[in-house]
């Protein structure tokens, strides 16, 4: 029996814990109930024990169902395996090398690129009629027309996984860098002193501690990769598509019976994500035991030069893919006539920008408003909660900690359907506030995730000094803690903003078509494959979060121009 006393607020500030709990749990709980209700057709209780499982039978017999399931599961594993390996080995191999800070510097803007924009960029780059082939044609490749190759939308989902990996690498890089200050890096030197190779030293001495801290973000990557919708719509397989896309199709089918199928499939989607997490968890044990065995046997893996070069190259390719992709968005947005195999547009024009200016502004401004409000509210809630934890001297229990991250672990496609029905019944769907509220469910965890560590690493003796000098708790918060933590606070806001901008499914379903944002427009345009328009929309979608990432790193530098000791000197902050 959990200790329910924890639910009783101790102070006015403490009430906020309940607000957060409600924000996260009520929508998800209610949506899940709606989902289960429609999947098992509770209103039609003719089946066993009043539970009707016919919807599940129907799902399983849908054409291509098992392939869809397999795809989603495979994405959920391959993406974190590749992304995590690249990030970990890269940091292990290059943390102390001179080029590292450049990679870190370029990684932040890459993090700001929304998934959809990165996927579009990749599409323009590697498609058979894409830039790479254009560049090589016809002189080198001999192609006068695009080769009939399956470089995107391939049935095995390789291009899909690639698009996910290049976006998850910066995310995992970011959270790892944030976790590094807590790790004792000197251990690596000791391990290396015993003759272990550089990567292996890091792996056995620092990785375990770092991994524990980034485990949750890794789980979020698994959940995201196994259930994403927008990236799958752009570069994913089509016949059959991953399960998430199938669910979206059934959800949108005019045949009511398909709605039940969608609900049943959504429950199966949760099961796939859980299964992927479970397999990962087993994998953790296997890796742990193998590593322990290798360490105990004294294997040192001293010759890792080739491996280091390989990972260095992989990392470079991953960054180059995103950057070139963005550059291609720019090219296409200004392209007039640009036919295959011309490497560059024959005619440059502002037509796409001019013809779309009004809509770009409207949908961009709406996305901006939603993102700004939802991340501002989330930031306030996170700050208040962290301050409350400090003042009441409590730490989130394991349960509370996991609660915060439920929205990142439950597949969006699984509970957004239920939530949209709920909002429809309440009559609040299609309003800006409903969209803001739903965005907050996803923004809050990320803001909390990025801010909690720097917050807890803060030297509270500053507060003690302030208190001794007779300042109130509040003044200590506003005048000491907040200014000192300005950089991480702004960073967390920027990340929250980026998370909100990138939200496709919640905006689409809760917005009921009345709150189109730059992201929903961009993905809708993808269906028509008009590269010029996709270029303009995806660029604006990229620029919006970029502004705040830039501000988050500039403002502290300006504000602290005369407080040099406050400037972030340690990497990762």
């Amino acid at each position, binding site marked *: 029996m959990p200790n329910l006393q924890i639910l009783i607020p101790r102070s006015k500030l403490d009430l906020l814990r309940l607000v957060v709990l409600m924000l996260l749990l009520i929508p998800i709980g209610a949506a899940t109930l709606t989902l289960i209700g429609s999947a098992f057709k509770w209103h039609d209780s003719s089946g066993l024990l009043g539970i009707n499982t016919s919807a599940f039978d129907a799902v399983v017999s849908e054409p291509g169902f098992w*392939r869809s399931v397999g795809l989603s599961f495979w994405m959920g594993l391959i993406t974190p395996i590749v992304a995590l390996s690249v990030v970990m080995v890269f940091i292990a191999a290059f943390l102390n090398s001179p080029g590292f800070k450049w990679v870190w510097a370029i990684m932040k803007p890459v993090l700001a690129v929304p998934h959809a924009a990165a996927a579009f960029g990749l599409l323009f780059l590697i498609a058979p009629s894409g830039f790479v082939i254009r560049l090589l044609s016809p002189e080198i490749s001999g192609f006068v027309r695009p080769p009939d190759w399956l470089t995107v939308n391939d049935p095995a989902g390789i291009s899909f996984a690639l698009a996910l990996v290049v976006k998850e690498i910066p995310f995992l890089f970011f959270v790892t860098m944030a976790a590094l200050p807590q790790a004792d890096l000197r251990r690596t030197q000791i391990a290396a002193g015993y003759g272990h190779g550089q990567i292996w030293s890091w792996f056995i001495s620092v990785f375990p501690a770092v991994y524990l801290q980034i485990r949750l973000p890794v789980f979020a990557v698994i959940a995201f990769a196994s259930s994403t919708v927008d990236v799958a719509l752009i570069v994913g397989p089509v016949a059959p598509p991953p399960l998430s896309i199938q669910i979206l199709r059934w959800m949108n089918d005019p045949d009511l019976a398909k709605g039940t199928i969608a609900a049943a499939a959504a429950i199966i989607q949760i099961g796939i994500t859980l299964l992927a997490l479970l397999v990962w968890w087993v994998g953790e044990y296997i890796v742990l035991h193998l590593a322990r065995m290798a360490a105990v046997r004294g294997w040192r893996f001293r010759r890792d030069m080739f491996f280091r070069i390989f990972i260095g190259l992989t990392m470079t390719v991953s960054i180059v893919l995103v950057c070139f992709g963005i550059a291609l968005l720019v090219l296409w947005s200004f392209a007039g006539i640009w036919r295959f195999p011309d490497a560059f547009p024959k005619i440059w024009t502002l037509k796409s920008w001019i*013809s779309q200016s009004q809509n770009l502004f409207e949908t961009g401004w709406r996305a901006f408003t939603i993102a700004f409000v939802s991340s501002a509210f989330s930031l306030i809630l996170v700050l208040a909660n962290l301050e409350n934890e400090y003042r009441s001297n409590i730490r989130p229990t394991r349960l509370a900690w996991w609660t915060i991250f439920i929205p990142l672990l439950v597949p969006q496609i699984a509970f957004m359907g239920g939530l949209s029905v709920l909002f*429809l019944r309440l009559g609040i769907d299609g309003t800006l506030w409903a969209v803001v509220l739903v965005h907050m469910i996803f923004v809050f965890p990320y803001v909390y995730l990025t801010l909690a560590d720097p917050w807890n690493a803060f030297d509270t003796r500053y507060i003690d000094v302030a208190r001794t000098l007779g300042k109130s708790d509040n003044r200590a918060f506003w005048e000491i803690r907040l200014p000192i933590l300005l950089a991480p606070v702004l960073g967390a806001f920027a990340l929250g903003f980026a998370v909100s901008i990138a939200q496709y499914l919640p905006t689409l379903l809760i917005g009921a078509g009345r709150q189109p944002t730059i992201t929903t427009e961009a993905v809708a345009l993808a*269906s028509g494959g008009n590269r010029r328009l996709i270029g303009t929309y995806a660029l604006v979608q990229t620029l919006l979060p970029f502004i705040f990432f830039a501000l988050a790193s500039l403002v502290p530098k300006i504000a602290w121009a005369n407080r040099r000791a406050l400037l972030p000197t340690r990497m990762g902050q």
Partner: protein
Amino acid sequence: MSLLKKFYVFLVTAILAISPVAGDEPNPENWDSVLAEARGQKVFWHAWGGSENINSYIAWVGEQVESRYGVDLVHVKISETANVVARVLAEKSAGRNEGGAVDLVWINGENFAAMKRQGLLLSYPWSTYLPNYQLTDFENKAVLTMDFTEPVDGLESPWGTAQLTFYYDSGNPVFENGSPPTSLEALADWIEKNPGRFTYAAPPNFIGTTFLKQVLFGLVDDVSVLRKPADRETFDEVTAPLWEWLDGVRPNLWRSGRVYAADTTQLKTLLSDNEIDIAMTFNPGEASSAVIEGLLPDTTRSFTLEYGSIGNAHFVAIPFNANAKAGAMVVANFLMSPEAQARKSDEAIWGDPTVLALDKLDAEQLKLFDSLAPGEATLSPEDFGIILSEPDAFWSDALDAEWARRYGAGN
């Protein structure tokens, strides 16, 4: 039909004819009151948003109805009309009988049939009372009163007509005697000799479904079977040659039939990129339009298959729970105005054929159309050949489902 049933039909029709409007719904017979009610309303028009020129045309409509009637038109860009049907259906089952999210929807065929069948449309014949309806060619163009095999009954308002048309670049020497294949046999032959150079859109996208129906028309002996719903056995029997034809060409399709195009816009892009040699569209003016835009070379030409091609009309409809019904009617009426129709027919704008009867227009209205000369990529009216009218809406759904089972499952 029994006598009693006939009587009821007569009674209902009579009542509807006398008073098209129940309660306080906007009454298009009293057009001034509709105009008055519409002023200041915000109309959410759900319409496919995958084509830039159509989107800009809709934006122009928005400017016009704003300045002329004070109606604020919002284009909700959607990728599948079926989603809108699902949306309205969800609203109905949630008990939202007014203030719905959709005010106007661009629709036809099986989606119209589905909405009509499930009572999701404004349930009185409003469209025939719109002032501009009288200018349309409803007397001669059967497609304006019969949407596939579903009677329109004034529940949707005509917007444009369409005919399945193929187009290609004649400057690209890919066809043996310089002319593209115009029979199914020749097409299959050509696909086999030119692997990877032909594809169609994946159903349920409308152009994909239409292609299936087009092929089916060329392979069935007796097309009358397509005019009504069929049972499973008949369906399997009638469609067997279709699947055989598709199975035959599949290995030699673009991407070996493992990926299909998304819609007409992607087909156009693929042709423009020289990834395929033949594209298809429902808009006979699309090829010329793309030439003007610079997307396709001016050697682009259109053709149809020799046994005829599927033609239909597209409409706008108002859901039963629309929030701005009067505003939606004003937009629907404006869409049928000579000015809006002429602009839509202009291949530099869109190139979609008009629903108006040109002989009903006065001299000034006619002038709007006179200046529009179709481009070289557009077929002349005599080259269009026979128009095949759409099969019953049942066939669309059944073909989509069977196609998904055969080719959408990755087997």
